[in-house]
């Protein structure tokens, strides 16, 4: 993990949110963002943003934090890791 990697992930998540603000209330925007991240981000990236939300929530906007919570929920039920 590097500072730059984390700051890029934060930027990416906030950018997804900014481009979906028109989707409605914060909860809806968070849902759209979480679904997007769920569908397009690699496992390691998801893990990094989840860890960040837990350790440094102040670095994320409220909607981003909400999105990460939803993202975490989406991962429930999926195998935590993958063993080919």
């Amino acid at each position, binding site marked *: *993990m590097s500072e730059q990697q984390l700051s*890029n992930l934060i930027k990416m998540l906030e950018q997804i949110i*900014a*481009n979906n603000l028109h*989707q409605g209330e914060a909860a809806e925007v968070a849902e759209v963002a979480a679904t997007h991240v769920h569908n397009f981000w690699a496992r*390691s990236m998801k893990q990094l943003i989840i860890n960040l939300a837990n350790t440094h929530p102040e670095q994320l906007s409220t909607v981003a934090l909400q999105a990460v919570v939803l993202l975490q929920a989406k991962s429930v039920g999926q195998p935590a890791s*993958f*063993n080919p």
Partner: protein
Amino acid sequence: MLQYYDPNSSDTTNPQPLNPNTDYGTPASESKTLVSVAVDGRNITVPEGTSVLRAAALAGINIPKLCASDNLEAFGSCRLCAVEIEGRRGYPASCTTPVAEGMSVTTQTGKLAKLRRNIMELYISDHPLDCLTCPANGDCELQDMAGAVGLREVRYGFDGENHLDTQTDNSNPYFSFDPSKCIVCSRCVRACAEVQGTFALTIEGRGFDSKVVASQNDSFMNSECVSCGACVQACPTSTLMEKTVIDAGIPEHSVVTTCAYCGVGCSFKAEMKGDQLIRMVPYKGGAANQGHSCVKGRFAFGYATHKDRIKEPMIRASIDDPWQVVSWDEALAFSAKRLKAIQAQYGRESIGGITSSRCTNEETYLVQKLVRAAFGNNNTDTCARVCHSPTGYGLKTTMGESAGTQTFDSVMKADTIVVIGANPTDAHPVFGSQLRRRLRQGAQLIVIDPRRIDLLSTPHAGKGIHLALRPGTNVAVVNALAHVIVTEGLEDQAFISSRCDTEAYNRWRSFIAEQRNSPEAMEAVSGVPASTVREAARAYAEVENAAIYYGLGVTEHSQGSTMVMGIANLAMATGNIGREGGGVNPLRGQNNVQGSCDMGSFPHELPGYQHVNDDVVRSRFEAAWGATIDHEPGLRIPNMFDAAIAGTFKGLYIQGEDIAQSDPNTQHVEAALRALDCVIVQDIFLNETAKFAHVLLPGSTFLEKNGTFTNAERRINRVRKVMAPIAGMEDWQVTMALSNALGYPMHYNHPSEIMDEIAALTPTFTGVSYDKLEQLGSIQWPCNDKHPEGMPTMHVNDFPIGKGRFAVTEYLATEERSSRRFPLLLTTGRILSQYNVGSQTRRTDNSKWHEQDVLEIHPSDAELRGIHDGDWLGISSRVGHTVLRAQLSERMLPGVVYTTFHHPGSGANVVTTDNSDWATNCPEYKVTAVQVEVVSQPSEWQRNFKRFDKRQQKLLKPAMHNEGSQHAKPTD
């Protein structure tokens, strides 16, 4: 369509299928009315408007001709094609005489024979009699016609006034112009006008003094000529002739294959002598190009035999070591061992693979299969990430399929043509010529681009509407256009209510109708006058058929995906979907951008855009591949770089892609590459990325392998091997061998078997096979039970997602804004003669047209900074600094500067940032805030680049000359 052979023309009433190798004399008629005529007693039915010459050719009767060709309008100057027609006086020219019902034509009588001999006598009396030593000997229509008319003597002698001493123009690197052989048939002039649309040639003077001149009597090289080769192709003599033919003689066999440069996907006959490629001749039977070409595909093939080709596998322990030549087995074993060791130490997800849109479908399919099945992760990506990934996202979201909707020919039915962020005459030249032809027929052009592109100055076309917007404001403009359509009642309500999702439409409609999206409100943002936007919106929405073509000026933005959705909204709102003349058409940059996306190169999608987290999809692939596939998407290219710098991503297999030159923020990419423990590059040259590699696997050019490319119209074309791969293995075989070395078995005997596997696993490809490609020539996917011969126009009755989904496209300014420190906006693009990173075209004479990248700057910005044409300019952005020469240009508005990135030492991407599209991470190449100033020396990056390049060339040299110890083993 161009006027070449048209496989879909109404000439199919003819029982014999048209032969692309036959010249039918004049173009096909489009008429649906049929007329019957008799030619030499043979009855034939042809469409009304067909010439007698063509009708005869269709009946298998070849009337002598010189000035006619089936890609040009009949001209009637040589009179060699004279015939007798019952009930008519004289000897009309058959090329300019249309057939009429019941007409009876005689093509051979004593009088006609005499007339034709007289004509030939006149031609030959002013023509050198050096047939035996002429380069066209054996491939000369004049010679053929002399034989056909039975010319035996030239009564006028050869001593009169003639042109035999005129000088040859050798200025063009690829063809020569020897006016002493010219018969002034004007085929070249007409080809340049009608086929290419450049109008560089004219006939100057009259009668005996008439001659062909380029531009204002310039040499070809100094004229407006763009070296497309259409005139060379059209010339019936050796006047215009390829230099390779002059040097090597007439080729003796040919193979039809597909150009490996741009997304037009032109078909060519590779004409050979033994295993030597003599010339590439555009193939009339190719549905994408119908016999036309551009300077790249036609002439720039010399790189295939360039001395810099990597001919043997090589390895080295670190990038500071010299390269060592090894056997394939050793190179593959070394690679496999390193990759496995990395995974053992850093985890399964610590390695990945990148494939290129230059590779075939079969190759890209195998690379993603290797990553998913042998590496055991989904860290696979393609260079399409950095160009058209937003197209995939935007079109799939709105219309359900990640592809353009039309054929190229569809443009010939468009009444209004909108070109957004694309420059077809440079980047998709053959399609650019077709588009210009439609503009000459009267279609309205709308260009949305910060730069005044050449299409806007199409000779003999009407005035185009240019929306010269500020870089980064596409979405503002597309919203303003939609606002006008919605608020002025220009929507196609019938289409919307029957074909589109009502709820999504209503949401979009109320958003777009808001005053803040009006042209007047957006004018301050985009810089485009509201009245021009309103004019453009009406010109788009009020006609029967309106088509949108777009390029990287749409996708390579922080709102690239939003803009693609905005374009789809426009087309759906006006009902311009599902028929010829309309549509949404992404102009794919490289030859196989469409294919590499189709083949599952993206980390989240298996072939056919099937998501990896879909259990049903995954299990089908798992069963076929005998491997478990991760359900989580993998890393995209920029994410790989970040992970490499963070130390968690350590190994990369790169096939045919030069990320060190083509990706943005070069210094960041270089840092990532240096951080990797194992970089395996499979390429034809030591490209910029290979300088950071530990394994170099020789790649093969498109001439050395079998496979398929899919062009921008979803057309799958065959690539056929014309010479042996330089290092013994085609690229798909190398990937297969690497997989086997890693312990995941792959066994294919031919790429056709890979295509069979693709067809079995990809719903849009189930009907595709090499056999069917042989039968049909090419196939536009989807090709399956529903569309057994493919589908030229998409979404005719419905969308793959059922109803079209309008998307709300809120404009959001990019973070990359001009400021006091960086007051100018830099945007990047391509030019005609060079291709992307230039590793191919820079190794051909195409460099004579573009020896270096320059910075185009508006004279007013230049004056402000004391800049003159040709000055060295330092260009600084928030991430880097480089130096280029200045070129004053009024193509852009003040405040905008422009450059290309075809030369690695230019460092254009040293200044571009790693800002990217919100949905896909496609980099924002098109907007970088910069400052420029006159400087006197190269930038620090450029000096380092030079040093590093010199060192890496030195480390390669012994291996290239086989000086090092053969097959030595570096320690790993």
